[in-house]
């Protein structure tokens, strides 16, 4: 099997050679080992060409080994479980993994689109802003073609089989990054008794220690890592999150971590075989202190054709060799402006690759590492640069020139070296993303040539390579410092801990080389890429500047620099350096760009967590819900509630059922579950005064035992909510609200009590859930209740309309209200919810002889519309006053109440405000469409805009009246009774309507009083 992996080194690496894993790329099968990433397995198999660039369709290979990878963007998996856009460098290999490249047609090796590269000069930065404009109508076709060529992977076609969850956590110290600095910091904090969470992006802790050949405390670094991890694991208040990427550092030290749960061993165990297992978990962490130790990113350098497959980051080459025992090339050249790449040369040599040369831009004889390289016989070319690369789908060689220190002069290459791998290091940039997200400032370090975290704005500190430390020694010491400082800030007693020792080689300073000069000037030379994924080049940045896009944000947006899936991790600093040069400024003068969450891309599903599908939002159910369901009632969604809409008998549709239910109520009796109404107990010495301020009517005049319809307004004078209220005692009221308004109204009342009128002694208690409410309506409702057995007289004299009584009904204590939303004789029964279902069943049983009809929200709407009763939210929309609704009779002149002053504003006094009226279609047959607009003349469309004078708010067929009825808001409507208007609905044909009173049924209101 190993023979099938031509570039797999015979020994070494953190792979498990006893566990070969089969996988495929673009249908071709390969074998890797457990512990591989998809990228390392591909390299072991000699596959380097894995992508095509966005605009120019140039062939691209694997460049990096982590989150900075711009090219190897894969579609992993198939069907519903497919995952678009994964960088191969971050995909843990698992058995049977199916991957596809995402660019290039017909294949990534042969891409017809590559012809774009020949037009590269036309396709400079921002070219699309300059063309595709004429003729105008063609843009949509251009656009369609452009869209087809963009994007990487596909969204799966079927819903996601995976489940996700959120997890809230609190800790004293969150350590982001489990490399050398993070491990020491976590250890220092945890040993001191702090609650610690250590999160690391990788599948195992150790970070750079897993990819290097160095020693810690005299042992291989990996052994030291294992020891620390074991100790941390044994501490009770230490949470370890490998595969946990810290995504965001938000305000008030709130951080999010995405933990991948369905990979590695878990993947082999399940591989979607156990649905319901969490695929990814979003940790929502509130930390007291945060230590950011996420290491750094190596930069590339800008030289001609620096994007050819086989040009890789030096650190990535080392990682593939040391961690994965995969050798990316056999004849290598190393190109660097700093010391770190020398280790790569040594790693290559150790892997028996031919290192043809180390090309070091810096003059002079080099330091300790250079000496080691030379000792191994590796030629070191000082003061030289790689200025061009040959080969298209694979590096074939490099041109090397002398470097005089000027990036913009033209040079002549003097040496050509054959090679198949070019390992490049342009220096290191600390991963300051989270520091910057947290609001921290950055300082440019002129010696180390990178942005370093400076002032922190929240409770964070940076450590290790992320804090600009370069050698392992320094990183370990810095981690210890950060851990100890966090412990001190928490006020804990610090535990004794010694800094682990490493034998780091001394390093010489980096040289400020960003753009390598070429044989022609910067605008004519072969492309020098800065952002590989978006094909942003040195020439593009210069063009942007020439065209006046001089701010770094303009340049980024104009060239798309940094907008790829790697978010500029590879190219942003180089881009800023080139921009600084073009502007004649320094890098810090150019500024930094904003670092936005998320640190690396995260699945939508992970962010959404478990609150999707059936758990998207609570379904609130009344105590009678089961009965309604069993009766086959379709549900109407009313906010979070599910309410029965209608109760169809066999063969009935909505209209049939509603007509029958309406007639039952009008002629005999019906019952409705009104439990969702908001219910508030209000009492206290000042309750009358309080309610006077809230409600528009004279609350104090209500006698004990009386009910009244009340409305409340917002301070803007608009109707906010309505409902029946009852005075239960001198200082005791029971209030009802609309279903949708229940929570808001209680909050609104509490807000006034607590913030504006704390001197009022009033207690409010919600009874919405305690009581279930059964409305029994219709001429037979009284007999029905009597039949059930009621311990109080129910006749008109003893229990008149709009009164409330405590009673026992069928032996159960209830509150009985003589109120009616249908205009019929009606009772509302309030009963403690645990007994509500029994009561409902008894009502139904007792009602059988009256052919009682359970009815739903639709019938309730028809019945109330026949009576001209409004529904807040249907007849009102936040712009309707009580005067508009004809409710002047409810507005007390004797007191102030909320919103009263607003009613006196000029606009509220206009006579042509929209007012509530009834409408009858002229033919008395047409049911007007709800939402139809009203116009004065039957004009045809075409002569727009047509002035509108109102709209239909409610419209139903009235079974008991035998014709349709509608409610509407009409400008100056009350004075227009008898006029003909025209309703325009979706059919567009104007329908003649007559303006009438909104009360269609029993206008004198006699039926409810019987």
């Amino acid at each position, binding site marked *: 099997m190993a023979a099938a992996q031509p570039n797999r080194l015979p020994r070494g690496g953190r792979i498990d050679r006893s566990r070969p894993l089969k996988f495929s790329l673009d249908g071709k099968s390969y074998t890797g080992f457990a512990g591989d990433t998809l990228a390392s397995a591909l390299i072991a198999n000699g596959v380097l060409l894995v992508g095509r660039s966005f605009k120019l369709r140039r062939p691209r290979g694997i460049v990096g080994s982590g989150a900075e990878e711009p090219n190897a963007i894969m579609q992993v998996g198939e069907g519903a479980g497919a995952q678009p856009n994964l960088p191969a460098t971050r995909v843990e290999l698992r058995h049977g993994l199916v991957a596809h490249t995402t660019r290039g047609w017909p294949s990534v090796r042969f891409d017809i689109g590559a012809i774009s590269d020949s037009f590269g000069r036309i396709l400079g930065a921002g070219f699309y802003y300059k063309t595709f404009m004429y003729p105008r109508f063609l843009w949509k076709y251009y656009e369609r073609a452009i869209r087809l060529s963009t994007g990487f992977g596909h969204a799966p076609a079927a819903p996601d089989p995976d489940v996700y969850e959120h997890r809230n956590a*609190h800790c004293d110290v969150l350590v982001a990054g489990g490399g050398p600095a993070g491990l020491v910091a976590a250890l220092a904090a945890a040993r001191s008794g702090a609650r610690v969470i250590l999160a690391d992006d990788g599948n195992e802790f150790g970070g750079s220690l897993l990819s290097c050949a160095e020693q810690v405390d005299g042992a291989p670094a990996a052994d030291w890592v294992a020891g620390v991890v074991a100790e941390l694991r044994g501490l009770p208040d230490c949470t370890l999150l490998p595969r946990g990427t810290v995504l965001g550092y938000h305000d008030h030290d709130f951080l999010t971590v995405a933990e991948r749960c369905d990979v590695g061993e878990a993947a082999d165990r399940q591989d979607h075989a156990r649905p319901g297992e969490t695929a990814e978990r979003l940790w929502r962490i509130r930390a007291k202190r945060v230590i950011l130790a996420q290491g750094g990113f190596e930069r590339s350098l800008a030289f001609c054709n620096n994007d050819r497959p086989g040009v890789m980051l030096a650190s990535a080459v080392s990682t593939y060799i040391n961690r994965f025992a995969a050798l990316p090339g056999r004849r290598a050249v190393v190109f660097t402006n700093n010391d770190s790449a020398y280790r790569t040369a040594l790693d290559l040599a150790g892997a028996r690759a031919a290192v043809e040369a180390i090309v070091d831009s810096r003059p002079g004889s080099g330091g300790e590492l250079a000496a080691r390289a030379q000792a191994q016989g590796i030629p070191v070319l000082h003061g030289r640069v790689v200025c061009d690369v040959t080969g298209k789908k694979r590096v074939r060689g490099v041109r090397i020139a002398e470097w005089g220190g000027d990036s913009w002069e033209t040079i002549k290459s003097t040496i050509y070296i054959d090679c198949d791998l070019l390992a490049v290091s342009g220096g290191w940039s600390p991963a300051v993303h989270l520091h910057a997200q947290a609001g921290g400032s950055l300082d440019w370090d002129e010696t180390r040539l990178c942005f370093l975290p400076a002032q922190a704005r929240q409770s964070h500190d940076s450590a290790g390579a992320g804090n600009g430390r370069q050698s392992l020694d320094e990183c370990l010491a810095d981690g210890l410092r950060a851990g100890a400082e966090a412990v001190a800030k928490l006020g804990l007693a610090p535990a004794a801990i010694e800094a682990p020792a490493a034998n780091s080689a001394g390093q010489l300073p980096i040289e400020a080389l960003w753009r390598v000069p070429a044989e022609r000037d910067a605008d004519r030379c072969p492309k020098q890429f800065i952002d590989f994924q978006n094909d942003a080049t040195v020439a593009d940045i210069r063009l942007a500047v020439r065209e006046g896009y001089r701010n770094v944000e303009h340049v980024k947006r104009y060239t798309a620099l940094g907008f790829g899936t790697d978010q500029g991790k590879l190219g942003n600093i180089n881009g800023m350096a080139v921009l600084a040069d073009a502007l004649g400024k320094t890098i810090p003068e150019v500024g930094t760009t904003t670092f936005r969450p998320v640190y690396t891309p995260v699945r939508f599903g992970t962010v959404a967590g478990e609150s999707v599908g059936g758990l998207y939002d*609570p379904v609130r159910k009344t105590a009678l819900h089961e009965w309604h369901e069993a009766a086959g009632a379709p549900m109407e969604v009313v906010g979070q509630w599910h309410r029965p809409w209608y109760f169809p008998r066999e063969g009935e549709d909505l209209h049939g059922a509603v007509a029958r239910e309406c007639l039952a109520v009008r002629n005999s009796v019906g019952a409705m579950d009104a439990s969702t109404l908001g219910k508030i107990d209000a009492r206290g010495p000042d309750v009358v005064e309080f309610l006077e301020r809230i409600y528009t009517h004279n609350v104090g005049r209500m006698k004990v035992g009386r009910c009244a319809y009340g409305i409340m307004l917002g301070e803007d004078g608009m109707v906010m909510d309505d409902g029946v209220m009852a005075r239960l005692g001198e200082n005791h009221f029971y209030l009802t609200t609309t279903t949708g308004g229940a929570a808001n109204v209680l909050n609104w009342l509490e807000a006034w009590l607590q913030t504006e009128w704390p001197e009022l*002694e009033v207690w409010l208690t919600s009874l919405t859930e*305690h009581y279930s409410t059964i409305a029994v309506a219709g001429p037979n409702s009284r007999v029905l209740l009597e039949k059930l057995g009621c311990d109080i007289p129910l006749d008109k004299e003893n229990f008149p309309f709009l009164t409330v009584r405590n009673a026992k009904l069928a032996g159960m204590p209830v509150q009985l209200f003589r109120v009616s939303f249908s205009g019929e004789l009606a009772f509302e029964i309030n009963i403690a919810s645990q007994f509500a279902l029994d009561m409902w069943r008894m009502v139904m049983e007792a009602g059988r002889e009256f052919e009682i009809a359970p009815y739903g929200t639709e019938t309730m709407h028809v019945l109330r519309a026949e009576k001209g009763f409004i529904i807040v939210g249907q007849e009102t929309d936040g712009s309707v006053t009580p005067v508009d609704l004809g409710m002047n009779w409810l507005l007390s002149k004797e007191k102030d109440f909320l919103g009263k002053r607003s009613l006196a504003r000029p606009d509220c006094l206009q006579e042509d405000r929209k007012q509530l009226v009834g409408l009858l279609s002229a033919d008395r047959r047409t049911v007007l469409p709800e939402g139809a607009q009203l116009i004065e003349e039957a004009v045809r469309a075409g002569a727009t805009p047509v002035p509108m004078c109102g709209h239909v708010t409610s419209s139903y067929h009235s079974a008991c009246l035998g014709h349709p009825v509608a409610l509407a808001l009409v400008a100056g409507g009350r004075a227009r009774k008898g006029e003909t208007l025209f309703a325009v609905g979706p059919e567009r044909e104007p329908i003649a309507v007559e303006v009438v009173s909104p009360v269609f049924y029993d206008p004198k209101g006699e039926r409810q009083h019987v």
Partner: protein
Amino acid sequence: MSEAMAESAPDARVDINELPGRGFLNVRLDPRDKHAVKSAEQVLGQAMPLVANTYSSGTHRVYWLGPDEWLIETDAENAAALSGELGEALADFNVAINDVSGGHVAQRLSGPESRTVLAKGCTIDLHPREFGPGQCARTALARATVLLAAGSEPDSYTIIAARSFTDYLRHWLTHAAKK
């Protein structure tokens, strides 16, 4: 949701049980009115917890809900009588006592993973040092408001929520307990 799903998770590391037969009273009074507090305590035979986010245990459980609001959990059969007794004893004070038995459902969550399950939907710090026996909190669990109380045994909690959210919460807890 089927009844079967309402049972505990298959691996039984978390048990979810509805507590049947519970009655609830809501009490509003101003704790600065020491006499009122005392009268209430005499009827209850236990302390009214005055420290925020704590509860007292005795014949009943009395939960602090807010600076002038408590929830008394008692036997369902006892609720009406207790409400009457409290009402009588506090008749001369400015208080509000409401029987809200119909509006609340209590569930018990126990088992070694119960804290983890709660942490999926609750943002308060549930570490036993921060939220131990005798402590309670009105807070959000997923998308419902709940009263959460730490039981006297480790990893056991009482969740009291509005009746209409019962199915939702059971569904959510069962889902969360599935791991």
